[in-house]
Each structure stands twice: as structure tokens, then as C-alpha cells.
């Protein structure tokens, strides 16, 4: 499918990760324009008018977030969240490995807009290649005079630091990320105060996702009206959707928001593999409720997906076909949260263990009639009772799976086995 790429530009321009190639294709011109034609507040206003929303999952308007910084003269920081680890999501990895300069250019423009002189990229520990690419690209940007003192004679100075995590999904939660960046365990902080008021080292800090910041250079180049010409009024612009599961072409797809889910699956990702039939779709990463096939015509924008009963989240779209056991899928996702719970809050720490245990025995054919009630009860005791969103995230898929596929859960008890014959290798308890 031919299209013009704005975020995944390396697909059109090989080697765009090299600064010379990036510049030959208009790279760092948006920075030049921003520094010479805009005051910082005007850039914040531009991003507000573009309607750009946080692409990490929450979808909060980026310009509005920038506007929360207190004007009290304290140093401010920009922190880019590249701790991508939400099952089903793999867009930021592609961006940092192949198009790192667009992120760096976006960081410089964003830092100028919010008047920050230090910016950080927090890269998950598993992204060794991404970390190396970013470190290399940052050095190139220094050598070219786009970082350091008095950038392009604007009087604006900025240093960028690339920091590597060491394996912890929770560090994608912004306050846990800041803890980790300060050399501590990645336990989330109490909010408020939000990072905009007291963030990194207690200073006003903006934490934005990689994809969010990668949108900033094209918005400066083409304008807010260009951005709002795509998508809907409340969800304008571009989004990268990561599609995985039994489709013909799994991968990242850059789409205008409000593209129908059906088009993403059938056209972009090439439809389900031969002989597979759609069972359900997780549209926005492992933390969101599933959508059944009757919702395939839902436009992929924040409001429509919410109305359909799920969330656009990070854009990690996992396709499940009819051969997949819903209990096994639920177990796998709950187990993920069990492993990744930081252990601070009892409902999350204990609840994810209970749910994973019950799901495992159901899948083994050892469940009882009470198990569905137990799952629902435990989920209810997690819901809204944890310090950070990880607890709630652990029940999103499970609760929707029980609602939509109750028969299949019950069949596991009734028949004393998995009706789909799914094999369980991970049998720590039985």
C-alpha cells in the first residue's frame, strides 16, 4: 500500500537514521523554523491547536500538559518515555531504531517550547540496539550543532541524556520512570503532585512518549491545520498502530486516526491468515478490554473505541482467532501483570497471583463452579484500589473476556478440560 510517511519515514528513505541522510530529506529544518520563527509559548499554542494527544496510552492533550508547568523560575526537564513494554505494542522500538533523529529533533523543539535545558530519553533495558542508535544519533546532533550551547545562534541551549533501564514494565508509568532515572527501584510515586509540578529531582518535568514527540517536527513543518485535517475533532492526526497475531502482515502501520479497525486488519495487515476466523481483537495494548467481531467497523479514534467498550491505548492491536482459548489468553495476560507488579499495593501484588492461579487451574481442567465468581471478586477488589494503573490494567482484558465468553470459561469446568485442547506448559502449581 503506497502512502506518504511522516513518522515511519525510514520506510521510504533508507538510512534516515544517519544525520546526513536525515538532513538531505529536510531533517532539522523544523528545528530551524521553530527557533527562528516562534517564541516558546507560540509553540505550546501550536501543539495545543494541533490537538496532538499522548501516544503512550493515556491520550492526554500534549499542549495542555505542557501548559501545566508552573512559571516559578525553577529548572524544567523533558523526559521521553521509551520504556515500551505493553504486550502488543512495538512502535517506539521501530522509531528509535530506524528514525532516531526525528525524535531528537522533536525533543529539541519541545524542550525549547517548554523552556527546558536538559532532556532525557529513558530507554528500556531490552532495547540495547535502540539505546545504541539513540546514543549515536545524539552524538551526531551535537557535532552538527543541534545540541549544546546556543543552538543555531538562537541563544537556546540543550543537553540530551540517554538513560538505559534494566527490565521493568512498571518503569513505563511516568513517576516510576522518574524514580528509576534517579537511580532507585521503579516504584510509582504518589500523585499529586504530578511530574509537571514536582518531577525529576523534584523539578517541573514533562514526560512524553516517543511517538508523541516524533509528531512534533511534522506539526511544525506542516502546521496545526494539516494535523487537524486528519482524524476527528477530538482525535486529530496520525497514529502508529502495531498489529500482531495471526494476520498476513503483522507490523506497524501509520494511519490517520478514525481509520476503521476493519481497514487496519484487512487492508493494512492483509487480513487473517488462510483458514483463520476472527474471535476478538485487543485494540490498544494488553491493558484494554477486548472487542468482538461485530465492532470491526469502529473508527480507530479515542472516543469511538471508548464508546465501543475498549480503549485506543498505545495502539497495540492483538488479533485473536477462533483457535485461541480465551482462558489461556487471559491467563497469559494476567501472568504478565503478576510478573511485572512492583509489589507495593496488596490488591495488585496478591490479586494478580490469585487470578493467574485460578485461570491456570481452569485451563488445566481442575476448576470448580465457584472459580468465575472468585475471578470476578478478586478483579473487583483490584479495580480502582491501587496506587498506579497497573492493577486496573491487569483486569481489563479478563473482565471483558468473562463478559463476552462466559460459556467458554464454564465449559472448562463442565468438561474438566480445555475444549480447544490448548496445552499448558507453564504448570508451576499443578
Amino acid at each position, binding site marked *: 500500500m503506497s502512502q506518504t510517511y511522516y513518522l515511519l519515514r525510514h520506510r521510504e528513505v533508507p538510512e534516515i537514521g544517519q544525520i546526513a541522510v536525515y538532513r538531505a530529506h529536510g531533517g532539522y529544518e523544523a528545528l530551524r523554523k521553530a527557533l527562528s520563527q516562534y517564541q516558546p509559548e507560540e509553540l505550546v499554542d501550536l501543539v495545543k491547536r494541533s490537538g496532538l494527544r499522548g501516544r503512550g496510552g493515556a491520550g492526554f492533550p500534549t499542549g495542555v500538559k505542557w501548559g501545566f508547568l508552573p512559571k516559578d523560575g525553577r529548572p524544567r526537564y523533558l523526559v521521553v518515555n521509551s520504556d*515500551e*513494554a*505493553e*504486550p*502488543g*505494542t*512495538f512502535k*517506539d*522500538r521501530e522509531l528509535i531504531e530506524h528514525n532516531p533523529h526525528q525524535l531528537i529533533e522533536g525533543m529539541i523543539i519541545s524542550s525549547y517550547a517548554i523552556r527546558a535545558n*536538559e532532556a532525557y530519553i529513558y530507554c*528500556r*533495558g*531490552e*532495547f*540495547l*540496539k535502540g539505546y545504541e542508535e539513540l546514543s549515536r544519533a545524539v552524538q551526531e546532533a551535537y557535532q552538527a550543532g543541534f545540541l549544546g550551547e546556543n543552538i543555531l545562534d538562537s541563544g537556546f541551549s540543550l*543537553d540530551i*541524556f540517554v*538513560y*538505559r*533501564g*534494566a*527490565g*521493568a*514494565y512498571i518503569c513505563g508509568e511516568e513517576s516510576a520512570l522518574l524514580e*528509576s*532515572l*534517579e*537511580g*532507585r*527501584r*521503579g516504584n510509582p510515586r504518589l500523585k499529586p503532585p504530578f511530574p509537571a509540578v514536582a518531577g525529576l*529531582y523534584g523539578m517541573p518535568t514533562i514526560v512524553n512518549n516517543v511517538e508523541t514527540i516524533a509528531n512534533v517536527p511534522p506539526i511544525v513543518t506542516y502546521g496545526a491545520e494539516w494535523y487537524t485535517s486528519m482524524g476527528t475533532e477530538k482525535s486529530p492526526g496520525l497514529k502508529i498502530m*502495531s*498489529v*500482531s*497475531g*495471526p494476520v498476513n502482515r*503483522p*507490523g*506497524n502501520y501509520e494511519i490517520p486516526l478514525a481509520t476503521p479497525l476493519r481497514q487496519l486488519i484487512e487492508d493494512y495487515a492483509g487480513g487473517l491468515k488462510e483458514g483463520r476466523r476472527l474471535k476478538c481483537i*485487543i485494540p490498544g495494548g*494488553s491493558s484494554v478490554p477486548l472487542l468482538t467481531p461485530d465492532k470491526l467497523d469502529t473508527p480507530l479514534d479515542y472516543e469511538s473505541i471508548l464508546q465501543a467498550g475498549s480503549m485506543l491505548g498505545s495502539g*497495540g492491536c*492483538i488479533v*485473536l482467532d477462533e483457535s*485461541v482459548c480465551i482462558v*489461556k*489468553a487471559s491467563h*497469559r*495476560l494476567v501472568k*504478565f501483570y503478576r*510478573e*511485572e507488579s*512492583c509489589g507495593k499495593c496488596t490488591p495488585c501484588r496478591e490479586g494478580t497471583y490469585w487470578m493467574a492461579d485460578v485461570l491456570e487451574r481452569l485451563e488445566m481442567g481442575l476448576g470448580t463452579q465457584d472459580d468465575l465468581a472468585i475471578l470476578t471478586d478478586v478483579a473487583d477488589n483490584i479495580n480502582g484500589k491501587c496506587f498506579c494503573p497497573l492493577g486496573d490494567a491487569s483486569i481489563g482484558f479478563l473482565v471483558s473476556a468473562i463478559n463476552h465468553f462466559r460459556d467458554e470459561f464454564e465449559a472448562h469446568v463442565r468438561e474438566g478440560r480445555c475444549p480447544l485442547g490448548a*496445552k499448558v*506448559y*507453564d504448570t508451576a502449581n499443578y
Partner: protein
Amino acid sequence: MKPEWKEWAQEAKKQFPRANSALLPLLHRIQRAEGWLSPETLTEVAELLDLSPQYVDSVASFYSLFFKQPVGKRVIHVCVGLSCMLAGSDELMHALEERLKISQGQTTPDGEYTLLEAECLAACDLAPVAQVNLRYRGPIPPEEADRLLTEEVSS
């Protein structure tokens, strides 16, 4: 303590504006050289950064990529996330366990291989995916499990 660690500690402190941020980079660097972080190493890191050994231990134990036991020359992380499960990661893990005669979480007695589960490597387009010493390999269908044991990986 290795003589070069002092220098590395100074470099880690200088790498970031605040010295607090030096701990993870220093642990990464030492682990890369030593393979793992022994209790003695953690105590020495604490000394180098003026932190308490308990603090360094508690931080190191939080993160799954810091190894507090010796690992093999080849550390294989098999992604067991949902997308990889759909593509056969359980069978891939099972094949590796059979081939290496160890369970996930263990190291072969000859010290060559460590087999670990990874919770979503953010590479679902390559499912089933694995990392060998943090370098991506995928897709690796279960019947090609041996590739993870033999193919060259960059350092």
C-alpha cells in the same frame, strides 16, 4: 574490585547531571564485563558511589536484567507475551528446554546457556521472538529453536 571500576564510577557520575543517576549505568557496565553482579560486586559498587550496600542490593534486585547469579555465555530470553504465545512461543521454549535439558530460569552445567522467559520484548511483529544476549532474533518457529543456540550474535 577491578582497578578500572573506579574510573567507570567517575565516568558514570559525569555522564548525567546528578550523581544519583550513575547507579544503573555503572551496574550495566560492570555486568557487561563480569557477566553478573555478585554480592561482593554490589558491595563494592555501593562503596564507589557512596551508597549503602543494602540500597544497591535493593535496586539491583528490582530489575530483571541485573543478574544476581552467574549466567551462561549465551543468555536466551524467549518472549512469552500473548502475541508470541499465539505464534508458538510456548512450543519454542519447550523445544529449548528439551534440547538444553534445563528448565527456563536455569543455566546449563557447562555454563554455556541460560534460558529465561521475557515478558513482552516489544517485537510482536517478529513473533515468536527471542533475544540472545539482548540481540533480537525472530521470527523463530519452534522447529528452528537450534538457531538460538548456534547462530553468531554481535557483542
